[in-house]
Each structure stands twice: as C-alpha cells, then as structure tokens.
C-alpha cells in the first residue's frame, strides 16, 4: 500500500506518481533497483485518472510507431500477468475527404513498415465495426484492430501494487519542495514530509515538469506547458456498442469509445491554457455534445453523467522530453507527453530504466531528446487528438 511516510534514503527517486512514474518505478524495482515514488496527492491523481483510456500505434512518424508497438506488447503482457482490463478493440479514424485519405495512406505505410497491421477500409466496413456510426459523409477509415484501451484506474493500481511487491516505495500526499545539490550532484530532496537522501532523480511530473526543472536549477530550455482538456462520460449502455476508439478530425478532433463499465467516454480538441485550472467548463459540454452526436446520432438520447478536466502537458512538437539532463548528475526527465502519456507509459518505463541502468536503450529515445528544443530541432508534430 502507498504510504505517507518518506524513507530516509533511496538510490533513485521518481517525482510524480502518475502512470509514467509508477511504471518507471515498477520497471526499475523489477530490475532490482532501490526506487521511491513521491506523489503530491494520490497515485494517478494528476492526469492519469483523467485520461481518455486510449492506446494506439497509429502515429505518423517512425519513432512513435515503434515505441507504441512496444508499449502495446507490454500492455498486453502486463494486463494478462496482473489481471487488469486492457482490450485490443482497435482505433478507427473516420476520414472525410481525399486529402485526409492521402495523409493516412502515408501514415499507414509507416505503421505497416514496423508490422502494425493498419489498413484503409470502406465506410461500410467501418459501420460493420461500429453499427451506430453515421457514415453518410465518411469516404474511408484507417483501421488498426491491435490498438486498444485500458482502465487507467485498474492498470495504475496494478502497476503500483506490483512495483511495491518488487520493493519500490510509493509515498503519497508528499510534495517535493527543493533539491539538495552539492557540486552539481544531487544529494537529496526536501519534501513536505521531510528530507530523502537520493542520488538519482527522475522528473515524471508531466504537466508540472517545468516547476521541478526550475527547482533543480535546470537552465536547458524544455518547454512543457499545461493545457486544460476535458472529457465526458454518458450513462452505461449495452456492452460492445462502441468497441474501438473512434476518431474524427472533421468533427472537432473528437475521440470516443465505450469503457469496460459501459459508458461512452471521450473528448474533443477544445483546449484552454496554459493553465493549471481544472474546472470543467460549460462550453466543453456543448462542444462535445455537438460533435459526438454528429458522429453517433444515437448519443443524442443518452444522459451525460459527468464531465471533467485533465492536462495535456504539451511541448511545441507534441512529443515528450525523455532523457538525461547533463547539467546535473543524475537527473532524468520523462514528461511533456502532450496527451499520450497513458498509452506510452510501459515503453517509456523501459526506455528510462534502460538509460538509468545501462546508459542506452534499443528503443528510439533520440526522437524525444530533451535538448531538441534548445537546438531548434523540433520533430514533426505527433498525431494528437482531443
């Protein structure tokens, strides 16, 4: 069980107890490292428990496709080992004109190159997958049946539990206040729960990463800003009504699917910020209802149970910053996921653990080089929805 008692020392300390911090701790502990996670509220409370649940490999660049392919393998493995809901029910991108189709054909070619079985299908095939869809304006769809979704609650809880079984410590309701640094070396952290001696720190605070970087005195420019995104859930309906994640760029950059509990969950590209405010807005409720009911008319008669907000911790190219920051020893960052943190987490945990324990990794971590912003080497915009 997570505790509120900070240990005196830990070789490695992960700041931030979202899915990224928890899976990193899980992976490091599994490899026999001494690791502690410090979370200012409760595990998952930042962005993880507010996320849209989707897990996809349909990206538009080689690095993200490879990383997400690995991530899906890990999602599958751990959901079976630990028994939490993860289902490969696919991602269905609805396409409405030739230009969109051409773009997706290019994406599909990249995905196929790495063995992700995405293909272009007809509107009628899309309707077979989700009979509730309005396909009157759809010209094609990009379909990968191996994408999926997972319960953020049950998966994070399972990773946390097993991280602890491997010896990791999870400390909740404890806020990091300052770094203790001597001659460019991290010696410890001051927190609301006392001091912890530690030599290696991993900043996994995503939307709050810039605050921790500033606390550590990092001068390297790593622009990560918190944007408010919102989500909605409807009353539960018959299971299997909307199996895949359905995406429509035409209708508000919307994504929607059905949770394992039966409600229709999702969001649109209605972004506010940068801000740390998380109050849901009336405008979102209207936007999401307008777009969702265009995509699936039957939603008109369903009750909205709740809306809520979470952060997209965005970088200028919508790709995270993952790697070692050399101006301090030893300091790593894995943040700025721009709405993709939940889906990427298991692969990110592997990359970061490789870097910490071996100094290198087989996954294409260079793509997420934290120094790219300073060097002016932005990546192509990662495909983002919501």
């Amino acid at each position, binding site marked *: 069980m997570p505790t509120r008692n900070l240990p005196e020392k830990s070789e490695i300390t992960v700041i931030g107890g979202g899915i990224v911090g928890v899976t990193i701790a899980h992976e490091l502990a599994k490899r026999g490292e001494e690791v502690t996670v410090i979370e200012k509220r409760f595990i998952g409370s930042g962005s993880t428990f507010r996320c849209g649940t989707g897990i996809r490999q349909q990206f538009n660049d080689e690095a993200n496709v490879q990383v997400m392919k690995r991530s899906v393998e890990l999602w599958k493995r751990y959901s079976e080992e630990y028994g939490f809901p993860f289902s490969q029910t696919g991602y269905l991108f609805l396409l409405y004109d030739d230009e969109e189709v051409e773009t997706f054909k290019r994406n599909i070619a990249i995905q196929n190159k790495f063995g992700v079985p995405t293909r272009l299908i007809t509107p009628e095939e899309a309707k077979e997958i989700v009979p509730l869809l309005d396909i009157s304006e759809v010209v094609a769809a990009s379909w990968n049946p191996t994408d999926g979704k997972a319960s953020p609650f049950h998966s994070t809880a399972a990773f946390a539990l097993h991280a602890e079984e491997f010896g990791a410590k999870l400390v909740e309701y404890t806020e990091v206040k300052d770094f203790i640094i001597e001659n460019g070396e991290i010696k410890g952290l001051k927190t609301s729960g006392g001091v912890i001696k530690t030599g290696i720190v991993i900043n996994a605070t995503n939307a709050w990463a810039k605050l921790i970087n500033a606390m550590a005195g990092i001068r390297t420019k790593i622009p990560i800003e918190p944007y408010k995104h919102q989500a909605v859930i409807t009353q539960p309906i018959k299971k299997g009504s909307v199996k895949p994640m359905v995406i429509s760029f035409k209708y508000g950059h919307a994504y929607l699917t059905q949770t394992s509990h039966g409600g229709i969950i999702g969001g649109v590209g209605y972004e506010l910020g940068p801000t740390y405010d998380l109050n849901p807005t009336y405008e979102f409720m209207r936007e999401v209802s307008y777009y969702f009911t265009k995509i699936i008319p039957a939603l008109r008669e369903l009750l909205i149970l709740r809306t*809520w907000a979470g952060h997209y911790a965005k970088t200028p190219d919508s790709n995270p910053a993952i790697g070692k920051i050399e101006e301090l020893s030893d300091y790593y960052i894995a943040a700025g996921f721009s709405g993709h943190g939940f889906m990427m987490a298991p692969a990110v945990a592997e990359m970061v653990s490789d870097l910490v324990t071996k100094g290198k990794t087989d996954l294409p971590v260079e793509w997420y080089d934290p120094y790219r912003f300073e060097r002016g080497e932005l990546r192509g915009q990662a495909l983002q929805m919501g």
Partner: protein
Amino acid sequence: MRPLDLTEKDPSRRITIYFEGKPYEAYEGEKFPVAMLANGVYWLTTSTEGRKRGAFTFGPVPVKVNGVKNVNGRKLKLRDGMRIERQTYDEFQEQVEIDEDKPLLRYVVDVAVIGAGPAGLGVVEDIGGKLTVALIEEKDWLGGDMWLKGVEQEGFGNPREAIEKLTNFPENVRVFLKTTALGVFDKGEYFLVPAVRNDQLIEFMAKRVVLATGSVDSIMLFENNDYPGVFRRSDALEVINVWGVAPGRKVAVVGAFPEEITAELDRWGIDYIVVPNPKRVEGTDKVERLIDENGNVYEVDAVIMADGRIPDINPVTQTGGRLYFKRGYYRPVIDSNHRIRDGIYVAGSAVSIKPHHANYIEGKLVGAHILREFGFDAEPCIYEEKLKEYEPVARPIPKLPLEGLNAEDVQLCGCGVTLKKVDDVVRSGITDLQIIKRLTHLAMGFCQGRFCLFNGALLVSQRSGTPMDRLDIPVARPPIKNVKMKVVAGRE
C-alpha cells in the same frame, strides 16, 4: 378506486394505459410510477445486473414507451393508450429521430435562486420587488419538501397555506418550474447557470447565485434495500400527499427518524409498524416481508426509509465550495455573509438540517445579505439572531451493520455497486475514498454520489478508523444532474 388510492380522482381524466401488455386504470397527467403503485405494481425496470427495481429508492427508471427505449419512467406523465414496458438499464434507442434543436433561451437577472423550498422562498420574499430574480425549481411544485407535508409545521401552521402566501410573487420574479440547473459557471461579472426544462436548454446569467438546493434522504443499508416497494421518505410523502396514493396496505417504517413520516401515515390511517433494525426485505416482485436483526418477520408490502436527511453537497462542491463534517453530515463552509465564495450564497437544508421555518429564516438572512450587496438597506442581524434559536439536527453517525449481512445483497448505490464490492476493496487495504471511487464506480453513476457517497465514506471511516472529517471527499462535476446530450448539442 384503485387498490391503493387514498383519494377519489377526477373521473373525467380517467384513462387506460398498458404496462407489459396489461391494461391499467390511470389518470391523464399522472406520473407513471404513481399510477402503477395505485394498481399495486412496484417493479418497473431492471438494473444491468438483473435486479428488479421500482421508482422510489435509487437508480434510474428507464422504460420503453410506445416502443421507444430509455425513457425516464420516473418523470413520465401518462396519456391515454400509452404502452409501457420494462427494460434493463443498458438498453437504449439505436435509431433516433433527429428532431430540430430547440433554440436556446437566455435570461439575465440580478439573482438566480436554485431551489424553491422554504429557503429559496425566503430569499425571494426579501429580494423580490427590489431585484430581478429567476427562481429555478426542479420539481413541478413550489415549497420543496414542505409541500409534501400534510401535518402542521412549526412557525408556519398549515404547510400548503403558508407556501401559497409565500408564492404571490412580484413582477420581477420569474418562476421556472420543472427546470433542472446543470451547474454554476464563472463568466466574469456574471455567473452562468445553464438549466433544462422539458429538453429545452435555458441559460441564466445572474450577478449572484443562491444555492437553496436542499437535502437528500439517507439511504439505509440492508439486504435488498433497492427492492421494489422500498421507499425514500420523500417519495413516500409525495405519493401520499401530492398524488393521493398509499405506499402500501401495510407499511414498515425503518431508520432513526420514524417520526418524519409516521404523523403523515396516521393522518391517512395507513397501517404501519416501526422497525428500528431492518436486516432484509424479501418478496417475489415486490417487498412482501421485512426481517429485522433479531429475526422477527413482518408481513408488509412497503418499507419507508426514514433515517434522516443530509445536505446535498453536489451543488456546493461543483461550485467550488469546501466542506466540513459536523453533527453527523458534510456541510458547506460559509463565510460571515453566508457565502461559499464570492457571489454564491447558500441557504436552507443545503447548509444544515433543521425545521422548514429555520430554513425559511436562513433564506431571508441570505436575502438581506444580497440586498446589502446591491446597496439596499437590510438587517441581516435580525435573521441571524432568529436563526440562532434553532439548533441544527444532529444526525447520529450510523454504525453500518457490517457483520451478519449478506453484503452482496446490500446496494450501496443504485448503479450496481454493492456493499460487498466496496467493502472488498476497503478490506484489501485501500482506504483512500478517491481510489475506492475509481476502482468500484462508487459515486460515478447517475446520482454522482448524491445517495451513495456518504455511505461509502462511512464504510471507509468505520473500517479504517479514519474520522469522517479526515476523508478526501470527491467533488461533483457538471452537469450536477444528468442531461441528455441532445439538449446541450445545439448550436446557435
């Protein structure tokens, strides 16, 4: 007269409806659950887990009406020849009519008062005539819980006569009945209160908002506490005093506050027994017997839960108010002007549980504070003094009967969350209500915790030894009441 009618109904309004293919006598405009009750039919819908449900405890009441699925049976007003059938919660209408989006209505007022019980009416009595007011009431009557009472009320005398006196509104007070507020949102100088009436979206722009949103009846935990024939106190009062129908021929009253209903039962000569310690109800399609913790068996056909009320904290937390725990329930933290924050006031049993007249005085107190804010002379301290004469009700913190109950049959909430489901998580060592909520779906369904969160908190507190005031209580998110997507989907 139908089997459970207490009063003669207007014969010119008599109609025939069909439920599950069988004809029943009903009255034009009568609520569907009331008509079925009058005919002795309690089971109206079925939960996703296959549990039979009526309309008087918790959980939604979706039914098929003339072939259309997922119609809210609780609010359904009957017309001649309607054909109604049971359905399960998860059935929905796959083919829908795309009706024209209704144009948005917008009203700009000085003050939006949400809730027209004695507190809301007290506010309006003070400020009406001086300020423009929108009085927003979800029910189709004014007077809130007091309208449901037949017996004399302290400070008011006859409740209906008192309400009639209070509802002679001046011209600048607009009343919106059957109108459900969806939340309160900040819009610079104004607050936006979106609301829905009969699938029509209404936006109220108000400089000040009063939450006179009242309380909810406490849900008691016993086996089959969701069974058709189990009543919340407020629903029992409504069927008796608004619709003239008895909850049953022989009724059991359970809970710590039986006097909140027994005087009304006496008035109508409804046969009842008081059973302080219910353990289980049983029956085929409805309650047929109640068994208490001592093993006594009572043959009854309805059970009324009268276990006290607690403030409805959802409007408060959605609006950004904070809570504290006192006298056995969570209540809003208010400043010396009775505000939960700048511009948002709270009055009545949304603040604390007390008699109707005390809520009315509290409404007048809030009205006086608002008048002062708008530059009028007013004396809040007079009402402040009067209000001190009333000590809010202290509700003893119930001891949940955790041993000796079949926790699988005890519904913590109407959305398929059993006592066992939550208790298993708590006993596995997870005692953070925020996590428990997400792992069990407690407080994440139709009522957003209105009826189940308190018992969830109680369970955690009792199992973990953490005092109630130390628990991290999840806040409500908009919409504070469910709304159909089509209502808010329109574009101007």
